[in-house]
């Protein structure tokens, strides 16, 4: 028994020595590590999207490290759960800033992005919003930037394209009566009239509505050349179905919510001619995206939920790594302030899955908008605006 105890003690001592060595090694290594945070919903109602986005970012970090890291140093991403809940988001951001002491962190979901902005600004830590699209994000303070185009970018592109490239003179707007819908309807109206067009009907519907006959008949009476629909993923197919049933045969434009394969499945021939937007290139546009989608199929057995969003999340670590590299090259300290300064000095980033990203002076981002049209039962690329 005593022999055994001595043996055990020896083993314990050995383990302790190894552990101490590992801790020392890791702390030495930690100094040679570039760390940043990722605060996303890993649980809760939005986890379906959040988990896939985190996976995309993890793949990117692993690939950056596999290719030698940042100037030979490891890139480390600290992932925390926000549940897409502002309150939890604040706790998460506080931990990233005060405990993990990262110079920058990535987050998403408009409510969380807005809630944690004061923490980023007060502590001078860069908050990168990747995926949220509320136009307010551009006004959240000096340390809040977005790599994802805000709501007005694709709506403006669609409105301009309808007036100039499609030569439509009279447009009708049908939008859902909430903040997203009314802001987008305003943007569409402004851009379409500025391009020489006229808005002949501007109709809204209640978010709880299940029948849209009234507003659609008003649109029919106004006889527009084109209709812009600003709805949610949940009501858009039904509104389009009812438009076609009521004899509205005009081209219909919408935005990224309409761009999904289910719309064609649900509407069949009624989907023909519907134009939607995508804010990221698809598999047919880029070899890298094609390989990325193939990897999802191979490793996970399906396409990611919200593919374009995962593309943006995949690109975020590449952008962060580029800023870290530039700071390291110039032997500058790694702080939130220096990170922000360097990021703005670099301004333009060429990212693997979403292409060129140019940070604007006004805290917005300039990205190409892909206009997709349903043709012969398939989404096909109609045009790229702002490439």
């Amino acid at each position, binding site marked *: 028994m005593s022999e055994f105890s001595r043996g055990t003690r020896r083993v314990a001592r050995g383990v302790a020595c190894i552990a101490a060595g590992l801790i020392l090694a890791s702390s030495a290594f930690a100094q040679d590590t570039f760390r940043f945070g990722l605060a996303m919903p890993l649980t809760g*109602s*939005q986890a*379906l*999207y959040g988990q896939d986005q985190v996976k995309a970012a993890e793949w990117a970090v692993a690939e950056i490290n596999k290719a030698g890291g940042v100037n030979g140093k490891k890139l480390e991403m600290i992932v925390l759960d926000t549940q897409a809940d502002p309150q939890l988001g604040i706790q998460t951001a506080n931990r990233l800033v005060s405990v993990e002491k990262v110079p920058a962190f990535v987050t998403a979901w408009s409510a969380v992005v807005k809630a944690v902005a004061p923490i980023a600004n007060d502590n001078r830590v860069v908050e990168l919003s990747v995926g949220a699209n509320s136009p307010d994000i551009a006004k959240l303070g000096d340390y809040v930037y977005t790599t994802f185009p805000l709501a007005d970018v694709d709506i403006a592109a669609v409105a301009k394209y309808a007036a100039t490239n499609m030569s439509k003179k009279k447009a009708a707007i049908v939008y859902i*009566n909430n903040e997203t819908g009314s802001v987008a309807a305003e943007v569409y109206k402004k851009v379409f009239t500025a391009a020489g067009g006229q808005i002949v009907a501007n*109709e*809204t*519907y*209640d*978010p*709880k*509505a*299940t*029948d849209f*006959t*009234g*507003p659609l*008949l*008003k649109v029919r*009476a106004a006889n527009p050349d084109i209709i812009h629909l600003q709805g949610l*993923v*949940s*009501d858009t*197919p*039904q509104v389009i*179905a009812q438009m*076609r*049933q*009521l*004899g509205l045969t005009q081209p219909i434009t919408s935005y990224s919510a309409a761009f999904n394969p289910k719309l064609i*499945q*649900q*509407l*069949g*021939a*009624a989907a023909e001619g519907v134009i939607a937007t995508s804010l990221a290139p698809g598999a047919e546009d880029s070899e890298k995206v094609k390989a990325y989608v193939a990897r999802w199929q191979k490793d996970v057995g399906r396409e990611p*939920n919200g593919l374009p969003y995962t593309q943006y999340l995949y690109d975020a670590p590449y952008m962060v790594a580029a800023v870290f590299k530039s700071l390291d090259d110039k032997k500058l300290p790694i702080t939130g302030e220096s990170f922000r300064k360097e990021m703005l000095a670099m301004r333009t980033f060429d990212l693997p899955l979403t292409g060129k990203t140019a940070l604007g002076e006004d805290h917005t981002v300039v990205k190409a908008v892909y206009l997709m049209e349903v043709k012969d039962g398939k989404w096909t690329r109609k045009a790229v605006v702002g490439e």
Partner: protein
Amino acid sequence: MLDTTIILQILWTSLATSSYYVLFAVAFALVLKVTRLFNFAQAAIMTVAFYTAFVAVQWLHWPAWAAFIAMMSTTLAASYGLERIGFEALRKRGVSVMFVFVFTFMVSEFVAYLAMLIFGTWPQTIFPGIFWPVTLVGNIAISAWDLPAIGVTVASLGALLAFTRFTRIGQFMVGVADNPDLAELYGINKRQIFLVVMLIAGAFVGLGMFLYGMRAQVLPQTGLSLMIFAVAATIIGGIGNIAGAAIAAIILGVIQNASILVISSEWQGFLLYIFLFLAIVFFPNGLRLPQRRSRFGTATRERAAEQGRSAAESKA
């Protein structure tokens, strides 16, 4: 704007889409009338009904009739479970109406959350397509969904009426609704009647959800938002007045849609709440025609009492 085609089109489409609202409102009003419970757990039954049909068609590739049977089976099973495990236990404990209300609400939220975990937050439909071909009658567009939906609703209401008039259990239901304690004194098994009512309401909800899911997309939270309309129709139609709830559901749907002819479209959704507010403040017992004693209602109640009495005598 006010041309006849537009008015007739709005009237027709509102009438067709009010079919599922009528079913939801009747289910809610029926449970309220007989069991005196504001059954917000109806939203949970709606969620169960929809996702059963969805799984049967989209995951298991069953034909529509098999999906319908599966949907009805789980809906009735869920209604049975809710009555026996939930309401009956709460009744035995003599809990307050407010407690039951909280319980029903919690059940709905729980089921919605569970559906979200299993099926995600992406909207779904029962069948892959939701586009129904249209026939023009005059200049009025009538979709292939409209007539069957109206037909099913009218048939269900007819069946319910016949059930309450011509079957023993149906007449007991009227008796319990009128005065549960007196009905029990006459030997009517209240426990059995409550269960029957929950099952009928479940069947109505299942039918309504099947109609809804063939035409629109459903999210885990959809049941709860559809419930608001049923509650409004029940209150406006007069609490405890099943026919009133059904009529209120149709009228509310038509007014909400037709209002666009006179008011701006952004006020349409608001109208429901204005009606609800006015009804609660000024007509807490619903909008009624001058009180007139219904010969049919009296006769049915008398018949129910008579049969209950004979049932009690035969037991004795």
